[in-house]
């Protein structure tokens, strides 16, 4: 099933020649136009909304746009200070559901309503609010609670509990 949003098409028009659009169902062609690495580089600089739309273009694009590294960049970009080492953060967040999930569930709802609107509507790029460590901490806490609530403990009660 083709997944193509009109928005996505308009957005990407600048980036892809027309012929690629026509040939969109044949993923090999469109991806090959830019090359995955290059596409990834471009998307690394994209904001959350763009990433979301990019994921609607085609299966190939979706696979790329959902890459955790991209979303890690989206999340941490606006953090004044990453609370700890990158590796450390990455390990924990990935274990608890990933940056994309973190963003969509526990960062997006907090963003100022204006920030949630796409830039074209307001006509100018607006600065994202910078998040201090408390805001970050809150989002991460909520992520962990969400993960915990959904956890189904595996029932291997080997021996005594604790210790």
């Amino acid at each position, binding site marked *: 099933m083709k997944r193509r949003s009109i928005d996505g098409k308009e957005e990407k028009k600048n980036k892809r020649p027309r012929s690629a659009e026509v040939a969109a169902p044949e993923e090999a062609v469109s991806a090959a136009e830019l090359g995955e690495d290059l596409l990834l580089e471009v998307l690394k600089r994209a904001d959350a909304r763009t990433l979301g739309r990019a994921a609607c273009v085609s299966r190939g694009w979706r696979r790329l746009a959902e890459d955790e590294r991209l979303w890690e960049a989206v999340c941490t970009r606006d953090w004044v200070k990453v609370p700890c080492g990158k590796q*450390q953060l990455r390990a924990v967040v990935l274990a608890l559901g990933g940056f994309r999930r973190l963003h969509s569930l526990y960062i997006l709802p907090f963003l100022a309503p204006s920030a949630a609107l796409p830039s074209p509507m307001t006509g100018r790029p607006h600065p994202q609010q910078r998040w201090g460590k408390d805001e970050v*901490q809150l989002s991460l806490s909520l992520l962990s609670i*969400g993960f*915990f609530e959904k956890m189904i403990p595996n029932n291997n009660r080997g021996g005594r509990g604790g*210790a």
Partner: protein
Amino acid sequence: MKRERQETVEAAETEDEKGKARMDADDGGVDELLAALGYKIRSTEMADVAQKLEQLEMAMGSSVAANDDALLSHLASDAVHYNPSDVSTWVDTILSEFNAPSLPLPPPPLSPAPLQHHFNLPPDGTEQNSTITTVDVPSGPRCPADAYHLEPLHAPAVAGRIVYGSDTQYEVSLSSRDRKRMKLCSSPPSSSSTTDAATSPAVLPVVVVDTQESGIRLVHALMACAEAVQQDNLKAADALVKQITVLATSQGGAMRKVAGYFAEALARRIYRPQPARNLSRSTLDFPAFDDMLHQHFYESCPNLKFAHFTANQAILEAFAGCRRVHVVDFGMREGLQWPALLQALALRPGGPPSFRLTGIGPPQPDHSDALQEVGWKLAQFADTIRVDFRYRGFVAASLADLEPYMLLGPVASDRDGEEEPEAVAVNSVFELHRLLARQGALEKVLGTIRAMRPRIVTVVEQEANHNGETFLERFTEALHYYSTMFDSLEGGVSAAPDAAGGGGRRDQAMSEVYLGRQICNVVACEGADRTERHEALAQWRVRMGRAGFEPVPIGSNAFKQASMLLALFAGGDGYRVEEKDGSLTLGWHTRPLITTSAWRIASAAC
């Protein structure tokens, strides 16, 4: 006694005059409000019509016993009435059907406003007599409970009549008579306007049922009932409870639910002066059920999340730099507080410490090991984020059963070689107040805590005094507190991402049950059973101070996190976080709800 009567009469009279003034302001001819309902009554005639309707009601009331069906069927089928919208003449015609002479209404103490008739019941009519005697229950100082009976009621008319007397029989029959009367009078389009219109001339000032006013009446009724209970005036209390139930139906939303729960609690108290063992622990009370309610309460409003986040922040700060930490949780339940702390520790610069958790919970009647299950789940979680985690669960019917050696116990001795001692944190969310039910229990527990030499003790309690000396004090406080709580729940199907619409409503409903049980405990239980002995922060400060603890201020990061958290909840505008002397309070509009405070052993006492 006379004085009270006169006071209420005066009050009623001023209301009446206001009402009259209001009506005179309408065009001098037909009263507008009633005209809108299809009745033409001239403002000048109002008093007259009211009187006549009153007479009519008396007449019908008194004659019922003798020839109920006969008369009514006559009125219904044989008598011919013209033009009911011209109420004045119409009432006249009906009255003439009654061969009874117009009832001699005793001269009211003050002005002849029809309102007075409500408490000057005509001496004839046997039922009415019994009513009067019951109302005049002699009880020391003339208590407002009785005076209240005499106030005119503007609420749905039928309710106005039911007030008098504790004779259930009478009440029931009267209401059915009233209903019959309503049917006879029906002519205007809808039945609801019938009710209003038919009786409104007798209740001058308002035609539309004023929810706000009946809300105030509801509160008055609740207070009066509580007072009656305090004075052991169970008959009056019983009557009032019924009245409360009726008045509650005129309310909507939070007020209705709160009134319902309070009425139920009062009823329990009245009918079972010796509460069954563990009233709060009813048939439905498996701790599992309690936990389930608790879970829903967690989802439906920010209170518990606020408690957890602020306490965690205090603990996190206290654990800064420690390599071995031990948390003792006095109310383990589902362990929802700890994933966030574990995550925060995992992301500490320098890596997580080795973490030990001791969870304390109540005994389970069905022998399921909920404590261990929670422990397993947390262990799995900790494993996911690579935090060294150990867990121990303790079952204790009461916290006072704990001894220090149990909590510090064998695990400490395992690590005799360790150079670094554990940093201990004790966490209590809504658990300490239960200890106040037993003499000396709190002191013992605080002593136990001290013996563990904790770095920090986090205490979250309701910010209300439900442990006052007298029942009435507690009742009043509880009424205000839980009204606020229910109000805050009304606003908020959570806007949190995981909450589906239907789930949100279910959460709200379950939370109301959860709070309802607390209400029941505060109102209906006494002695050792009354475990919901909430006290305000000021009182806790005194207790903690006496036990050798000093307050630790909670930092601004907790404040910021809490503030942000509130934005997630639909009622977010109503919630407030306040900092006071180092403790954080969550409030709804102007009313504080819960407070988080942190403590450590006072240095002087060390």
